[in-house]
């Protein structure tokens, strides 16, 4: 159900008792029934997708509410238990909003709080309720008190609502209305809403010393890994591991690009150790990709009938469990703990030796050289591929492109932002093609393995046939990608795009 009425909240942690006194003293405000005790959970994904979609999602004693933060409109649905997955939400507008925002991510109760609610009403000359006022008091998990005054408009009485908010703000010594009740609770719980994002968001100055800029970026990536560790170990959803792996790969790319910025032995040591870390995460991720693709497989090979592919889903799940146990062991190992602490120390110390001749050069210059070099690598390897080239050459190009992409993402902001965006977009088109080729190959090989195991047991004939259809579908995906490669690469290597990269990153671009 959609409700359109304004709502603001005031943080009254410091003077909650005064608020009670104040409201009891207003002639036109009445108590509205006895106090209530409620349990409220504020829900969002780990990377705040609900918030980024402009919503605030809360569950309170059997009702789930989505509030549009900008318009104040709310949708509610009766929901007996806290939903864990977007599809656990009862069908309707709330479900659709949550599903669109969260995609494959799990809903986490970011804060849970028990509240006592004192209810009041502002009445007009006909003794009609024109504003509802709730004083909500409680404590978050660590005992920090939270108190908010939630002033909720009644539809059609916006003027009265605004008037009361002004009056309260004045009487509470200029207390400003925050507007979002959830934020008051987040603040009390010490959470920074929207604080985590999987994006690489590090602000760098072009004149910064290269070693300092790279260390700052790597520190951010290390934080991303650490932030996702618990979620990976608890296996909450697939995106914890995805973000963890991306941070590892970005770190490896930066290490690769840090020649003459970091001492050789240091680079070699961490490149080896981060490669190990990347490798231990690969089996789980490959299985995650499989598991996420099963509905799509069912569409391609079994007319959407998931039941037919259940034996495959079961095998994937069993392997996932095993692979996840191995990954957990790795993340709890001394090797991992040492890697984190050694890397952290190294990033603080910024070590140099006689070979680190570019350590203190401006990052913009070092980044330009590295991006140019990576771009030339993509160009060279791509041009060498013709219709008969072996697939290894495409895989190598995929890796080259990935390196270039990471460098553009890490340092693109140091250059012309708009033109860099275009450069990334062009690269992404090429990467999509290479990715489809690679996925087709990895998945059809993986599928073959699963199919052999399924065929060894008494299996349903529909399942075996569907696997056959699926295998040829995946091969087709790969063949299509291969067939389109030449066109895609030609587009990437066309003169306009070359000029774009040259203008931004070639040695001639130096001003």
């Amino acid at each position, binding site marked *: *159900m*959609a409700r359109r*009425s304004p709502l603001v909240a005031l943080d009254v942690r410091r003077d909650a008792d005064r608020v009670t006194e104040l409201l009891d003293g207003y002639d036109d405000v009445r108590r509205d029934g006895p106090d209530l005790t409620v349990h409220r959970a504020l829900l969002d994904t780990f990377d705040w997708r609900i918030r980024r979609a402009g919503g605030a999602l809360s569950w309170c004693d059997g009702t789930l509410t989505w509030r549009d933060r900008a318009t104040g409109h709310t949708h509610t649905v009766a929901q007996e238990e806290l939903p864990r997955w977007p599809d656990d939400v009862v069908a309707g507008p709330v479900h659709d909003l949550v599903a669109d925002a969260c995609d494959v991510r799990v809903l986490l109760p970011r804060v849970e709080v028990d509240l006592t609610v004192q209810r009041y009403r502002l009445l007009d000359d*006909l*003794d009609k309720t024109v504003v509802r006022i709730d004083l909500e008091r409680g404590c978050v998990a660590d005992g920090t008190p939270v108190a908010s005054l939630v002033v909720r408009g*009644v539809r*059609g009485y916006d003027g009265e609502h605004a008037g009361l908010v002004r009056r309260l703000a004045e009487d509470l010594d200029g207390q400003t209305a925050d507007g979002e009740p959830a934020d008051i609770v987040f603040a009390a719980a010490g959470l920074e809403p929207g604080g985590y994002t999987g994006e690489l968001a590090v602000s760098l100055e072009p004149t910064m010393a290269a070693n300092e800029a790279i260390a700052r970026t790597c520190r951010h990536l290390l934080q991303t890994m650490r932030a996702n560790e618990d979620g990976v170990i608890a296996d909450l959803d697939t995106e914890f591991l995805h973000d963890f792996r991306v941070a590892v790969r970005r770190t490896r790319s930066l290490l690769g690009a840090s020649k003459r910025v970091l001492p050789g032995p240091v680079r070699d040591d961490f490149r080896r150790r981060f490669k190990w870390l990347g490798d231990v995460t690969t089996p789980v991720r490959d299985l995650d990709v499989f598991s996420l693709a099963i509905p799509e497989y069912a569409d391609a090979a079994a007319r959407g009938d998931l039941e037919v592919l259940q034996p495959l889903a079961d095998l994937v799940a069993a392997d996932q469990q095993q692979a996840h146990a191995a990954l957990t062991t790795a993340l709890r190992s001394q090797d991992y703990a040492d890697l984190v602490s050694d890397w952290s120390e190294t990033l603080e110390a910024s070590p140099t030796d006689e070979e680190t001749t570019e350590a203190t050069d401006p990052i913009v210059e070092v980044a330009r050289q590295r991006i140019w070099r990576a771009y030339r690598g993509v160009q060279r390897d791509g041009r060498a591929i013709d219709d008969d080239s072996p697939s290894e050459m495409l895989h190598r190009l995929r890796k080259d492109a990935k390196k270039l992409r990471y460098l553009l993402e890490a340092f693109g902001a140091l250059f012309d932002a708009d033109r860099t965006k275009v450069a990334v977009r062009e690269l992404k088109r090429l990467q999509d093609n290479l990715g489809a080729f690679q996925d087709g190959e990895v998945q059809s090989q993986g599928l073959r393995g699963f199919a052999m195991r399924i065929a060894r047991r008494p299996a349903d004939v529909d399942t075996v046939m569907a696997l056959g259809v699926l295998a040829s579908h995946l091969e087709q995906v790969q063949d299509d990608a291969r067939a389109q490669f030449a066109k895609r690469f030609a587009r990437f290597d066309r003169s306009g795009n070359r000029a774009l990269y040259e203008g931004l990153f070639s040695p001639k671009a130096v001003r």
Partner: protein
Amino acid sequence: MKVLATYSIKGGVGKTAAAANLAWLAARDGTPTLIWDLDPQGAVTFNYRIHPRVKGGAKGIVGEKRPLEDAIKGTDYRSLDLLPADLRYRHLDLLLDQVKRSTQRLDRLLSQFEDDYEWVILDCAPSLSLTSEAVLVAADAVLVPVVPTTLSTRTLDQLTAFVAEQVCTDVEILPFLSMVDRRKKLHRELQNELLDRDPRLLRTPIPNASAVERMGLLREPLVATSPHHPAAAAYQALWEEIRERLHETSR
């Protein structure tokens, strides 16, 4: 969204009391409900303590110059909103007469609330007019209070004929007995006769009670202030019956 209209050709038959109480019952469990007071007398609006005023009046609404949703007021009950009456609704017939497809106009106006409300209840002025026609076109069912008197039962027949001959919609006519005084022999006799004669008639009669009249004093629906009163219990039973009847039809 289901649209119900409380409607009677004749006034003073408990139509508004039914609209006010049934709307509250519809919204009681959190079901989003809108009641639109189309009667220029504005008795429902008065009962819900809302000023009878709509910016732009009937002209603004019929001409669609002002968004109808801006006129909606929240009542004291969380899931129940009200579109207030306005004295200028008395010109609604004239205004509808000036627009194209006038009998479709209310239906079109209401369609914007499809996602917002599960129930819309229209309380209409007693008459047989262009407005009545528009209401009958917009409604899924029309609730007709029938006081067990000879005249009332005759107006029910008139309405049935009007719908069949003039309006030509598949609106369901749901008559119910209103202001029934079991002490009166005529009421008892006519009630039984009607129940036998008209299968459309809802089984629950609403008793004639001074508590219903007192609603105007308290300005709150009886079902909210005195849920255990026999008349409140009757509205409750009537509401259940309406829901069941509509459920059967929709199957």
